[in-house]
């Protein structure tokens, strides 16, 4: 049986070890890595659905996506080619004009190349604890502004292209009360990442 003093010493030692990690996660690096993790998770999903990934805007042999909102085509991104010849672009931190005219930057956006129609959006929420309902409300606003109506991903469409279903990726726990909103507005939440 460990004593209280010993347990507190273990916590102290743990915090000393965390101190070495601090520079690695400081200056929002942790948040940026989480966005990249979600982005490449989606890239992998699309690749596994038979789409061929092509790297775009490589600079000096380096893939450097936007870290803050910017013009979609001014940073590195990945496009996907389908067997039929259609192409899609997957952007990270790109800015788009919403239905109202205001500019928005959902974390990840999948867009049809030729028509420039936004097909889906994916948000990355690097939080602990439980994700508050305000984030789901914000996401519903994004769906409306980005013109992603529910009918576009109805049951048949979703079964054919599940990767197009809008989604919130989060390291937090999704609150049970978010279920009604997910069902009503038809999006996924992938939690505890």
């Amino acid at each position, binding site marked *: 049986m*460990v004593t209280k003093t010993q347990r*507190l010493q273990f916590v102290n030692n*743990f915090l000393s070890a965390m101190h070495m990690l601090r520079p690695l996660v400081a200056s929002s690096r942790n948040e940026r*890595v989480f966005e*990249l*993790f979600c982005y*490449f998770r989606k890239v992998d999903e699309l*690749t596994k659905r038979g789409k*061929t990934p092509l790297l775009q805007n490589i600079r000096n042999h380096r893939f450097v996506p936007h870290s803050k909102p910017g013009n979609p085509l001014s940073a590195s991104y990945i496009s996907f080619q389908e067997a039929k010849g259609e192409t899609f672009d997957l952007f990270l931190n790109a800015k788009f004009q919403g239905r109202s005219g205001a500019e928005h930057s959902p974390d990840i956006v999948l867009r049809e190349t030729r028509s420039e129609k936004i097909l889906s959006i994916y948000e990355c929420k*690097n939080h602990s604890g439980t994700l508050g309902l305000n984030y789901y409300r914000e996401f519903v606003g994004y769906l409306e502004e980005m013109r992603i109506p529910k009918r576009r991903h109805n049951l048949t469409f979703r079964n054919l292209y599940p990767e197009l279903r809008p989604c919130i990726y989060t390291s937090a726990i999704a609150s049970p009360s978010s279920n009604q909103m997910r069902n009503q507005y038809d999006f996924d939440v992938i939690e505890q990442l």
Partner: protein
Amino acid sequence: MEFFKEASSLIYHWLTEEERVQLLTELHDEDIRNIEELRPDMRFFRLFHFIQVKYIKVEEWVNSIFRNLESISSKSSNFFAEDLVFKDANDKNVSLLDLQERLTDIRPQSIFRNLLEQVELQEQFKLYLDHLKKRWHEW
């Protein structure tokens, strides 16, 4: 409860000012005004989860990105790990490969698991997360 109270205080005071603000924002989203409002054991686990998300999980995320890069490279043009760079909040370029190497040296996930074992709270932490899923608003 005395351990939880003192350990929570140690962790909370170790956080940077910026992290305390982030924590407070998250707590507000959960309808909790401040960390003191939680029972000492819940306070400890809530802070512990915060540390896990802010400091520990990054190792898992980076490794997952590298696995995905390998998968992409096998399907398309070569995409090497050293080619992936991102900018931090100060606009400084960060190489994902360098980050992975430094994380491999420190092994945060292993340190985290060790602490849970040492303080004999592995099960309770799992129960806390499960409970959050079911009855988060009652804590």
